[in-house]
């Protein structure tokens, strides 16, 4: 009971900060920025967050958190505008949305689909933020008992599960991506002895700066990929009214709880991300629906399934990030980088050092979601014009902004050069079909994995882990993710070999 009262006190204290006038203005502006960025095909939420991290450098921590979360929430939803009106998902997580959103727009219900999608996104965000605020204190309690072995296993679990989930068939490239990220994290002097490792140029002595690397991988690589093709965009769908009727609204809110739970759960798995949540929720929704024949032909229920789940992922991804410093998605990784820039260290100790922080995050996400619906009322129609923005003008300007973003935090020209190098690496990895989420996770978790592993080895053998419940659970889940991934690889290789021999 006393614990509940204590948590309520933290909640009220956090609410006082979130509902401050200036904070609300910042969130409003950030949500608007996120919606616009997410709506433009080729500009992803991850890219926006990567570019904006350094802008928050001059802000105080509370403002920076409000700003980044506002952009995050807006950008995840923004993808639905181009998915519905152009049949081109603005962000990868809106791909499932296009399946029903575009047919609805072709039927003259584009406005209803857009507003309904934003409303479903809002519902999913709020429910998952509430779940996050309920679940996180319990996870903190478990995380506080973690030793070095547990930290190491968590990092390995993050890489393996992220590798398993970020590719469709074999997780091999996902795992390799994670270990490439681990390698990059090894560059510089080590944390225990200050021993030099892979210092190719003197500027790398302190290691690879996370923010320029992320800006390169998600900014420059994205710009090159977008400008590679010449797809012109043309809105050939009908807008109509923006308010769904009673029956349509009923369909929109039908999958709310189920899709929110799916989204929040998937979001909490490291690296799984919004797109997996949206597809899984869509697939479950179709199998449970009484009107499954409408799925893919313009179903409000189908639209709500994907939109609710992809936004519910936001708060879900915050759970492992806040408690274990393991981001649940690439956007959450950007948020983690921003927090590091402000000296906030997520992880088990955060609940002791800053007990209100988790509630600030949860409440900011809820406020951003509500503001997003209000903005959608006004912006739905004008937003269609933004979709047709000339990307050949926009993308070079984005390159200029990546330069600013990479330079800003340390005023270092080397960081700009490093950013370009990572841009090229990111582009090559994408062209070679390597997912970037495990690389990002490896980059973030590499230092922890290295130090925790070496310290754990010197403190005692891994057998001691089996006597601790969390340790034993972690060993089982790591083994499970490795074995299931290996089996998936064998299966997909056999299928490919069979196809190759058929071709001969």
């Amino acid at each position, binding site marked *: 009971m006393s614990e509940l009262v204590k948590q309520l006190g933290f909640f009220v204290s956090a609410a006082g900060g979130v509902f401050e006038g200036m904070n609300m203005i910042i969130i409003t502006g950030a949500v608007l920025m996120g919606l616009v960025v997410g709506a433009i095909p080729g500009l992803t939420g991850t890219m926006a967050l990567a570019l904006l991290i*350094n*802008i928050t*450098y*001059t802000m105080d921590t509370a403002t920076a958190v409000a700003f980044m979360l506002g952009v995050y929430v807006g950008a995840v939803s923004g993808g639905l505008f181009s998915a519905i009106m152009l049949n081109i998902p603005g962000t990868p997580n809106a791909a499932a949305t296009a399946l029903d959103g575009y047919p609805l727009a072709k039927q003259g219900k584009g406005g209803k689909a857009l507003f309904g999608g934003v409303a479903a996104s809002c519902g999913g965000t709020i429910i998952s933020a509430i779940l996050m605020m309920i679940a996180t204190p319990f996870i903190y309690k478990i995380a506080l008992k973690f030793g070095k072995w547990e930290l190491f296993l968590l990092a390995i679990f993050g890489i393996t599960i992220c590798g398993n989930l970020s590719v469709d068939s074999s997780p*091999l490239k996902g*795992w*390799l991506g994670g*270990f*490439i990220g681990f*390698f990059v994290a090894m560059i510089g002097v*080590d944390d*225990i*002895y200050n*021993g*030099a*490792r*892979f210092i190719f140029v003197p500027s790398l002595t302190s290691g690879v700066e996370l923010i320029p690397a992320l800006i390169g991988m998600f900014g*420059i690589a994205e710009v*090159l990929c977008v*400008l*590679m*093709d*010449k797809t012109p965009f043309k809105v050939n769908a009908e807008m109509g009214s923006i308010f769904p009727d009673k029956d349509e609204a009923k369909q929109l809110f039908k999958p709310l709880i189920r899709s929110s739970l799916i989204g929040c759960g998937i979001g909490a798995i490291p690296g799984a991300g919004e797109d997996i949540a949206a597809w899984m929720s869509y697939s479950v929704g179709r199998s449970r629906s009484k009107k499954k024949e409408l799925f893919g032909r313009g179903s409000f229920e189908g639209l709500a399934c994907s939109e609710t789940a992809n936004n519910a992922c936001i708060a879900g991804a915050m759970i492992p990030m806040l408690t274990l410093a393991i981001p649940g998605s690439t956007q959450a990784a950007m948020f983690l980088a921003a927090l590091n820039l402000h000296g906030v260290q997520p992880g088990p100790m955060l609940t002791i050092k800053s007990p209100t922080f988790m509630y600030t995050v949860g409440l900011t996400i809820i406020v951003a979601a509500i503001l997003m619906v209000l903005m959608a009322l006004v912006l739905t129609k004008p937003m269609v014009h933004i979709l047709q923005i*000339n990307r*050949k*003008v926009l993308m*070079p*300007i984005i*390159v*200029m*902004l990546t*330069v*600013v973003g990479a*330079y*800003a935090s340390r*005023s270092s*020209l080397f960081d*700009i*050069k490093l*950013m*370009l190098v990572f*841009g*090229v690496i990111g*582009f090559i990895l994408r*062209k*070679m*079909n*390597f997912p970037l989420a495990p690389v990002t996770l490896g980059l973030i978790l590499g230092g922890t*994995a*290295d130090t925790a592993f*070496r*310290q754990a*080895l*010197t403190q005692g053998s891994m057998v001691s882990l089996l006597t601790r419940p969390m340790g034993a659970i972690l060993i089982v889940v790591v083994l499970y993710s490795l074995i299931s991934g290996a089996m998936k690889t064998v299966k997909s*290789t056999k299928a*490919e*070999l069979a*196809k*190759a021999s058929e*071709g001969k």
Partner: protein
Amino acid sequence: MEGQKKRNAVRDLVSGAFLVLFGIYVIVESKNMRVYNTFIDAPGFFPMIIGIVLTGLGAVLAYIGFRTGGVTELREVCSFSFLKKFFMEDSTIRVLVLLAMMVIYIYVLVGRIHFILASAIYLTATFLYLKAVKQWWLAIIIAVVSSCVAYYAFRLGFGIILP
């Protein structure tokens, strides 16, 4: 679809082989790193494990590429006619030119001349190359205005002085 599968086989073979070589490099470098106390807590211990994993998984990837027809396709990909076709493709040329422009902007212009001038030159050149706008003078105006807006917005709004 079949073409895509074959290209995937080449990608797997080439990236797998590269990762095997890279993994071996990481192992050798890690082995040569200084040992302060024991090897298991030395700076080179974890990188060595990373190298071993990269080599092992890279070998599996290369093997998959090899078994799914990567070698035959690689011969085709390395042929003069294919390479000529590849380098003459619109998308390849566009990426190479855009990348060259970025390299010049970042490695040559930024830091040597004022940010506004460097960015305006880069943006104008890129707009003109991409034929982003119909009139050349419009390209210059957009480039100069966006460079100035970025510079002063960051300087006045966020206190960040750009190079």
